[in-house]
């Protein structure tokens, strides 16, 4: 457990393409997921920028109507299936989860590798769909549009299907890992909160994703054979498709936000150097969100022809999600109380999320409300709402988490000042982009519109400028991280002073993670870890020196 143990580590003990591509090491798979999501983020982000530049002024600026329709579809599909869903669970989760549990690997390393390969195959299929006619259905694939358009829906649908199975296998792996691989002494309530969040996420992944699988297969069956279950021309019911689709896709929103909440719990506690406030409430609220997330999908169907009775039930259930979400936020803020707060990039991201999730979560009150949703459904208000949740909360937490675990992944420190600066720029750019969109929505601009009336022009212009700011900031954040690999200072095993187990192994870890079984304790008790020096980072202190009383008690017991 000292710094020179890092001479042989998981990054350099084997080299070559095959040693990465065919690896069974959860850390290597986690990194590959991370690079893949970064690449996909740049792709999806450039689609977003093209969209925003097209909307800079009314009418055609850059692309045609049809190209615009392809762009927003692909932006959604790439960002959701290739970036956000695998971001924290598959990338950070793969790297961190076994380390946090003091385990050598996830329960099923081969399935873990299969899961990454499926992700790649799915990504290739999506790209293939772009090359063979594109996709203009919207990422929601609503029938009968998706069954009648002449774009490459079948290939795209198979791509999403394969990625769905990648997600299922990751979830299956994590659940088995958490159940069966915890070290002796780590009870459920001594697990770090990120593990709870990943557990809740995995439950959603395994329960909901299969339903997306069948919904997508049925779209393919409609297109290839004309089966007609969703086709009104044959007596089918298109609203049934929406039920099947949202039974997955609403819980999927929590696949995006729940792990982000887990990351936030780690960040707030570590950077406030304080025990997380209300551990068990945060843990239970993750499980509560996971379960409730399954019985709220109908709020996507308030105006789609769903019956009034069912809409009312769904509205009531939807409002209950607000309660566990609020509990989490209150507990994070309370964690900062009487802490010792350092403004690292991770902490700045976490604090940004309090603001952004505040907006994203609270605007959910309007969407869940039967009266206001009737006006706001399918407008820019919704667009802004879910970007605040899925980007403002999930992706900001992801980037915060990447900065937090970066020293552990690569054994180097990134440039803190630059990381913090560009995170703040992206935060400002984000607000500039999406706050005006709430106004566009209430004032009457529907979503997925290529063209708009000049009265929305100045709002759209502000939004586009903000988007350019985000684009620049995200690029600079990546650049800062990339540069640190070459120029960064060597990281100590525990640069932040966190008490979770992953900080007990070397930075970067050895191929088998822990040379000796780590000591399991309270994951948020930081009182026995103190800062030594930049080279050695934080080290555990002798409890006797810290508090002689403890030693007395122990010696008398012995």
């Amino acid at each position, binding site marked *: 457990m000292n710094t020179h143990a890092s001479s042989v580590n998981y990054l350099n003990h084997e080299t070559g393409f095959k040693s990465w591509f065919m690896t069974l090491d959860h850390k290597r798979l986690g990194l590959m997921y991370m690079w893949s999501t970064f690449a996909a983020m740049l792709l999806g982000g450039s689609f977003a920028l093209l969209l925003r530049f097209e909307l800079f002024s009314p009418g055609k600026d850059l692309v045609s109507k049809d190209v615009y329709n392809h762009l927003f579809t692909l932006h959604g599909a790439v960002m959701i299936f290739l970036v956000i869903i695998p971001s924290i669970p598959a990338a950070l989760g793969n790297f961190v989860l076994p380390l946090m549990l003091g385990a050598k690997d996830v329960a099923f390393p081969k399935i873990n590798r299969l899961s990454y390969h499926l992700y790649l195959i799915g990504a290739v299929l999506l790209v293939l769909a772009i090359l063979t006619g594109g996709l203009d259905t919207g990422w929601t694939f609503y029938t009968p549009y998706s069954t009648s358009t002449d774009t490459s829906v079948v290939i795209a649908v198979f791509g999403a299907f394969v990625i769905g199975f990648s997600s299922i296998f990751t979830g*299956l792996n994590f659940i*088995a890992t958490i159940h*069966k691989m915890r070290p002796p002494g780590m009870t459920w309530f001594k697990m770090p909160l990120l593990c709870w969040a990943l557990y809740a996420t995995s439950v959603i992944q395994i329960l909901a994703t299969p*339903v997306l699988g069948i919904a997508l297969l049925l779209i393919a*069956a409609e297109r290839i054979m*004309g*089966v*007609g279950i969703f086709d009104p021309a*044959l007596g089918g019911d298109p609203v049934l498709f929406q039920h099947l689709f949202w039974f997955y896709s609403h819980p999927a929103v929590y696949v995006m936000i729940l792990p982000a909440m887990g990351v936030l719990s780690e960040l707030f506690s570590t950077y406030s150097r304080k025990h997380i406030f209300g551990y068990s409430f945060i843990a239970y609220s993750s499980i509560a969100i996971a379960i409730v997330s399954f019985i709220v999908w109908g709020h996507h169907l308030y105006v789609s022809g769903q019956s009034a009775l069912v809409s009312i039930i769904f509205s009531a259930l939807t409002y209950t999600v607000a309660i566990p979400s609020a509990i989490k936020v209150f507990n994070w803020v309370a964690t900062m109380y009487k802490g010792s707060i350092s403004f690292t990039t991770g902490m700045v991201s976490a604090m940004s999320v309090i603001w952004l999730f505040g907006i994203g979560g609270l605007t959910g009150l309007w969407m869940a409300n039967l009266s206001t949703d009737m006006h706001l459904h399918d407008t820019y208000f919704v667009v802004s709402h879910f970007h605040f949740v899925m980007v403002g909360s999930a992706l900001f937490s992801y980037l915060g988490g990447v900065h937090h675990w970066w020293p552990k992944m690569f054994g180097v420190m990134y440039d803190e000042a630059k990381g913090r600066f560009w995170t703040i720029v992206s935060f400002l750019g984000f607000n500039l982009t999406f706050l005006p969109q709430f106004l566009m929505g209430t004032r009457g601009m529907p979503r997925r519109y290529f063209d708009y009336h000049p009265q929305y022009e100045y709002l759209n212009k502000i939004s586009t400028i903000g988007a350019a700011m985000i684009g620049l900031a995200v690029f600079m954040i990546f650049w800062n991280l990339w540069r640190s690999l070459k120029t960064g200072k060597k990281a100590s095993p525990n640069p932040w002073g966190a008490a979770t187990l992953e900080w007990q192994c070397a930075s970067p870890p050895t191929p088998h993670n822990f040379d000796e079984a780590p000591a399991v304790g309270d994951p948020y008790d930081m009182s026995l870890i103190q800062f030594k020096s930049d080279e050695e980072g934080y080290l555990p202190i002798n409890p006797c020196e810290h508090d002689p009383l403890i030693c007395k008690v122990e010696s008398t017991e012995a």
Partner: protein
Amino acid sequence: MSSDHHDSKLAHHFDDLEQQFDANKFGMWVFLLTEILFFSGLFVAYATYRSNHPDVFQYASQFLDTNLGAVNTAVLLLSSFTAAWAVRAVQLGQKNLVTTLLGITVLCACGFMAIKYMEYSHKYHEGLLWGNAEHSIFKENTADVASSVREHGHHWGDVKDLDPEFRRQTGIFFGIYFCLTGLHGIHVLLGIILMLWLMRRNMRGDFSPEKYDAVDCGALYWHLVDLIWIFLFPLLYLIS
């Protein structure tokens, strides 16, 4: 994977064989859960159409051959029995018996698919298909029905005077029938591959009374395929 490990049956990241067996079996059950949810989408489609058009389902079900369905149920139950027996045999170290029992399971599965093929081809020739299929006799407009089925199909006379909406919904029934049994059939085919793989590993001597997780998990998968058929059979064939 660590080659220096003393016990080759134990993967490097597990502490002991019991933990490994437990984890594998747990993972298999979680996978079965996803399979159930995977089928659930089609069951939901079935339930919505059946509850809204009970008369259509009752009518359409008469075109399915109950006897073939019952025989297939029995065949699948037999294969489930031999699969469960194979687990017992591997627990007792009866290597050759395991091979034989898995072989019988595969044969039963092939028999199931053969009967399924008979049913499918019969439906195809008679035009008992979803409404959009070229040969279907359930097209909304009777004039669109292909002349070959009109002249040679045995069931054309029964359906030609139905109300257009009734015809359309009968087409939907067959759409659901083919999707459900088709997806189930794909699972049977995957099961055949799985069983053949297990047979090969068994003959290679991979399994022992201490380590037989793969056979146990394979059998679990096979039982689930059987379980789904137990529900499909009355839901599709036995509507009176």
